[in-house]
């Protein structure tokens, strides 16, 4: 909402600087987002009088002018064809910033210096309207009609010395969507008086009631409708002062009638509408629901589909306006209009909002009505508009206001306990002070016994309906910063504290292990989300197709991030994310229970297996590198309660995958991204990825670990190398060794896997280091030998493994 300083001063005296004004209003909830000091725009611009003009000695098109700027006479070289002695002109002095540079392609501002033009000194510049940002005319200098004396600041001469404030009005304060409303808030702060506009109408001619009729059929949606009838109206342009105020408020002037309705809306906050009375069938207004009327053309020329419960302003035969939203083409004021019916009504906010939303049509009027207008203002607003049109066009105002207000609106009476206010605020404000605060708001306050007040808020404060609303008002007028800060130091042991979470444990492990945490966007294209699982949850009103569906896996989004990094030359990537994936648990999404959100840990690795060092050759990462990292993580989190299972089942994303079983439950998978999938993301290098379900990991997280005594007896280490068929999985042999060795086998390490000439074609060598230890005695060679023999025998018979000499 734009507030113009001179307009505001019509209603309240205010002496603050723009900064003070901004700060003080912001503190009470009217946030001044920015302000523009128009006078500052024309700093160092003054009114000048052209004394003489001579041809430039060296340039035909230039004129050397002597210009009186009050304090002195300047020599200015001017290129405009229309400059002439005796003209009153806008002059930019040396040092002024010209708002619109005419020779700059983008019209950037520039600073005036003292220059020589073709050898002649020029101190300043006579400006065109375009250069001053005051119009489109750039062909010649602007000639002023002002009688201001030379040297007068241009801002004052042009009456452009306003400050325009942009104020963010929260939805609860529709009463502040006007200059009068902001003036009321200013007066609360300054303790000053608010001046409401005085209405002086000169009524004449036939009574209004004989010229027009108003009937409300659906009073639930329109409790009040006021009308004024005017004739002998001339649809002419508004005077400059009014046009300028509207422009500063952000509205384009149209004609005196439309401008008057807009002006009064920005002044008093109440939306108005002017009908061409002669275009109303039967000179009648009937306020009713649309019913069977299906289509309507609004005055912006667009045809609108109506719904039966939309409130329409109609004449005898047809709708003529969408109540509180926009007028119709069929009753619009035109150049030939001579008679008007001015509407000032009050509409039910929720119905206006529904209508505006359904039609996708938000107007200054609907914006105010849906937030809540003041039913008592309807009358004043109509009177004020009639007065303004009479002043502007010398129209006849017919005697009598037609005011249909069948039930009236009941003002709320609110019980207010000062003690309660102090309890909520943590203050010791005297009840008498509270009473005075509420009085300053315009509320009617009466005592109701010792402890209680009864408060009737002013009709424009539609946001005040209960005690807590009044408590907020007391705090606001008292000043939030006058309430002291307090803290409660007693510790309340009954409040639970947050438990440790496996996600934090995993995160700190991975960061320490050299992984970078990323965060991706949960919304992605549907095609991408579908890669991770069927039927992703879709947003019905996406901001773009790029952000339409919720991710079902973290991998596809990660591939996008990998692509971005590869394209930017970041080749070695070890990325992880802790986040959610989303899937539906039933076809339709009728409730939150139809959605499953699962926390996951994602890892992705591309590039080298270890950073290049001076004596370490670089090698590309492979699946076993990733498996080693996952091992380290899982061992930290849940000791040995997990295992990997090779699987090659259908998987849309990976090939050569391992699935992960944690504590007997499926907990995730790891693998290499399928080449065709990687290609879709323009990734040409191998990339290894995996996801772990964090709830499964959380379940298995072993924190209450029991101490195992440290071994007291030495271990015995033996190395065994087997030659096996290449097709035999290492895991089979390893399982067999563990099983055969029994509980004395403390550890088993595969320290070499080799395949080449020495092993013979189709065979490979697997070398293990086995450590044996007994908890209760020192193992003898004979004991260990017996185990080794058993292992060798079974390896041969079960796996066909030959001991390598």
């Amino acid at each position, binding site marked *: 909402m734009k507030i113009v300083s001179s307009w505001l001063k019509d209603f309240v005296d205010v002496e603050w600087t723009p900064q003070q004004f901004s700060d003080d209003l912001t*503190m009470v*909830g009217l*946030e001044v*987002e920015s302000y523009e000091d128009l006078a500052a725009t024309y700093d160092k611009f003054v009114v000048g009088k052209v004394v003489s003009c001579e041809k430039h000695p060296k340039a035909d098109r230039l004129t050397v002018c002597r210009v009186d700027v009050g304090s002195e006479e300047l020599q200015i070289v001017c290129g405009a064809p229309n400059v002439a002695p005796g003209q009153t002109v806008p002059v930019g002095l040396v040092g002024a910033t010209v708002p619109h540079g005419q020779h700059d392609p983008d019209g950037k501002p520039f600073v005036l210096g003292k220059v020589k033009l073709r050898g002649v000194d020029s101190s300043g510049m006579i400006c065109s309207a375009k250069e001053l940002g005051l119009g489109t005319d750039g062909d010649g200098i602007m000639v002023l009609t002002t009688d201001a004396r030379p040297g007068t600041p241009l801002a004052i001469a042009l009456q452009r010395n306003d400050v325009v404030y942009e104020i963010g009005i*929260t*939805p*609860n304060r529709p009463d502040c969507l006007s200059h009068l409303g902001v003036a009321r808030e200013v007066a609360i702060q300054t303790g000053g008086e608010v001046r409401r506009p005085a209405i002086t109408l000169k009524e004449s001619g036939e009574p209004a009631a004989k010229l027009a009729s108003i009937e409300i059929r659906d009073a639930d949606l329109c409790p009040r409708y006021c009308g004024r009838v005017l004739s002998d109206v001339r649809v002419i342009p508004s005077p400059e002062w009014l046009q300028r105020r509207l422009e500063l408020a952000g509205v384009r002037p149209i004609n005196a009638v439309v401008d008057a309705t807009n002006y009064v809306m920005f002044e008093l906050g109440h939306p108005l509408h002017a009908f061409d009375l002669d275009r109303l069938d039967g000179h009648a207004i009937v306020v009713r629901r649309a019913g069977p009327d299906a289509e309507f053309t609004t005055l912006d020329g667009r045809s609108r589909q109506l719904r039966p419960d939309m409130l329409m302003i109609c004449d005898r035969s047809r709708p003529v306006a969408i109540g509180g939203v926009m007028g119709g083409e069929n009753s619009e004021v035109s150049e030939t209009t001579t008679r008007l019916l001015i509407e000032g009504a009050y509409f039910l*906010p*929720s119905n206006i*909002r*529904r209508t505006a*939303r359904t039609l996708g049509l938000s107007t200054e009027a609907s914006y105010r009505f*849906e937030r809540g207008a003041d039913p008592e203002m309807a009358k004043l607003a109509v009177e004020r508009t009639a007065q303004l049109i009479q002043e502007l066009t010398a129209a006849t105002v017919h005697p009598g206001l037609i005011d249909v207000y069948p039930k009236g609106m009941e003002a709320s009476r609110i019980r207010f306990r000062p003690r309660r206010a102090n309890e*909520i*605020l*943590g*203050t010791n404000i005297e009840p008498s002070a509270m009473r005075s605060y509420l009085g300053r708001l315009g509320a009617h306050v009466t005592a109701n016994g010792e402890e209680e007040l009864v408060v009737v808020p002013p009709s424009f404060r539609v946001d005040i309906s209960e005690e*807590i609303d009044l408590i*907020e008002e007391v*705090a606001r007028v008292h000043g*939030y*910063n006058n*309430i*002291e*800060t*307090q803290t409660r130091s007693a510790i*309340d042991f009954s*409040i639970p*504290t*947050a438990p440790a979470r496996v996600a934090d444990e995993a*995160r700190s492990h991975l*960061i320490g292990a*050299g*992984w*970078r*945490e*990323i*965060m991706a*966007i*949960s*919304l992605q294209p549907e095609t991408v989300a579908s890669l991770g699982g069927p039927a992703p*949850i*879709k*947003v019905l*009103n996406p*901001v773009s197709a790029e952000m339409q569906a919720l991710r079902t896996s973290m991998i596809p989004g990660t591939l996008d*991030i990998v692509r*971005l*990094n590869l394209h930017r030359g970041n080749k070695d990537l070890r990325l992880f994310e*802790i986040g959610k994936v*989303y899937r539906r648990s039933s076809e339709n*999404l009728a*409730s939150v229970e139809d*959605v499953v*959100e699962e926390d996951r840990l994602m890892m992705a690795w591309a590039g080298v297996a*270890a*950073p290049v*060092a*001076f*004596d370490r050759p670089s090698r590309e990462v492979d699946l076993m590198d990733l498996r080693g990292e996952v091992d380290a993580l899982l061992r930290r989190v849940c000791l040995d309660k997990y295992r990997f299972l090779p699987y090659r089942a259908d998987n849309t994303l990976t090939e050569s995958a391992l699935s992960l079983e944690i504590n007997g439950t499926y907990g995730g998978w790891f693998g290499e991204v399928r080449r065709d999938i990687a290609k879709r993301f323009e990734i040409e290098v191998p990339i290894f990825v995996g996801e772990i379900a964090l709830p499964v990991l959380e379940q298995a997280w072993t924190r209450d670990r029991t101490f195992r005594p440290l071994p007291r007896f030495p271990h015995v280490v033996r190395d065994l190398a087997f030659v096996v068929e290449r097709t035999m999985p290492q895991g089979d042999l390893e399982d067999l060794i563990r099983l055969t060795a029994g509980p004395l086998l403390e550890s088993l390490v595969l320290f070499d896997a080799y395949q080449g000439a020495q092993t013979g074609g189709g065979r490979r060598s697997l070398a293990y280091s086995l450590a044996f230890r007994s908890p209760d005695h020192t193992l003898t060679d004979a004991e260990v030998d017996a185990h080794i023999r058993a292992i060798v025998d079974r390896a041969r018979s079960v796996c066909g493994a030959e001991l390598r000499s």
Partner: protein
Amino acid sequence: MNDRIEQVRAAARAEAASLTNADALERFRLSFLARKGSVADLFDQLRHVTAADKPAVGKALNELRTEVQGIYDGAKEKVDSSAQRTSIDLTLPGRPLFAGSRHLVSQTLEEFQRVFVSMGFDIVEGPEVESDYYNFEALNFPPDHPARDMQDTFFVSPSVLLRTHTTPVQVRIMEKRKPPVRAIMPGRVYRNEAVSARSLVQFHQVDGVYVDKGVTFAELKGTLVAFAKRYYGSSIKYRFRASYFPFTEPSAEMDITCYLCAGKGCRVCKHSGWLEIVGSGMVHPNILKRVGYDPEEVSGYAFGFGVERTVLLRHGIDDIRLLYENDVRFLEQF
């Protein structure tokens, strides 16, 4: 014989000082200690010594051998260790390891949590795909209320949406627990806004709530000031100003002096000298009633921080999209 022993001893001692490199050592070894060296030569001649003299001469020879060997060993140790030292190029780089890093938003969430946990707050989470009821209605946004315009919403069905704030978790936790309730609620939220440097369909919030007997607006101020001093430093200045949220009343915004310009006014604080850091207020009585609490018995305060906003301001990042692009060159800076 004894004379010859003393000659060799003197010769060996004379050379000791010159044994500063491997060549000299080797010459010394060959000359004195090798199989054909002068010490071995003397042992050879032991057999010409009379039986009576043998023990004394043998003892002297042994002493000679020990001394010469000692000279050699001592010198060799010095030569070896200095040789070893000069063979390492101490300017070689370390063999690098992969470096890890924590995402900035995740770092900031943790910092918020650490401060609030230290002040006795529990941490609670709630669903991101939320019902219209919890996201709006239970929080005093009736249907057809303009306050809904404050939060542009993604719907996944007519009654289910992507939550626009973490405030619905307040209602969920109050439904489950009896007062006192004191918790923060971090999480991801969504707004249907055009993507720009300032706005990206998703961001994170940290909501907080405390409901108990006699909780006051003054305490809300005290708690947020305590947080701000721990997070931004004890020298900050602050102000509370009136605002509006449907679910709190009175509602307030807290500003702190802009730490980039120290309140003088700059581009970041839009020349106001102030930065808005948290929206807050007293839990609206309607919400307490809706979860089955008696507003005459208990009262509470609530607040909500925007995490990304805090991150951008604190680290001087001018585009929110950088946070979710995850360019490694960005990640490794933090």
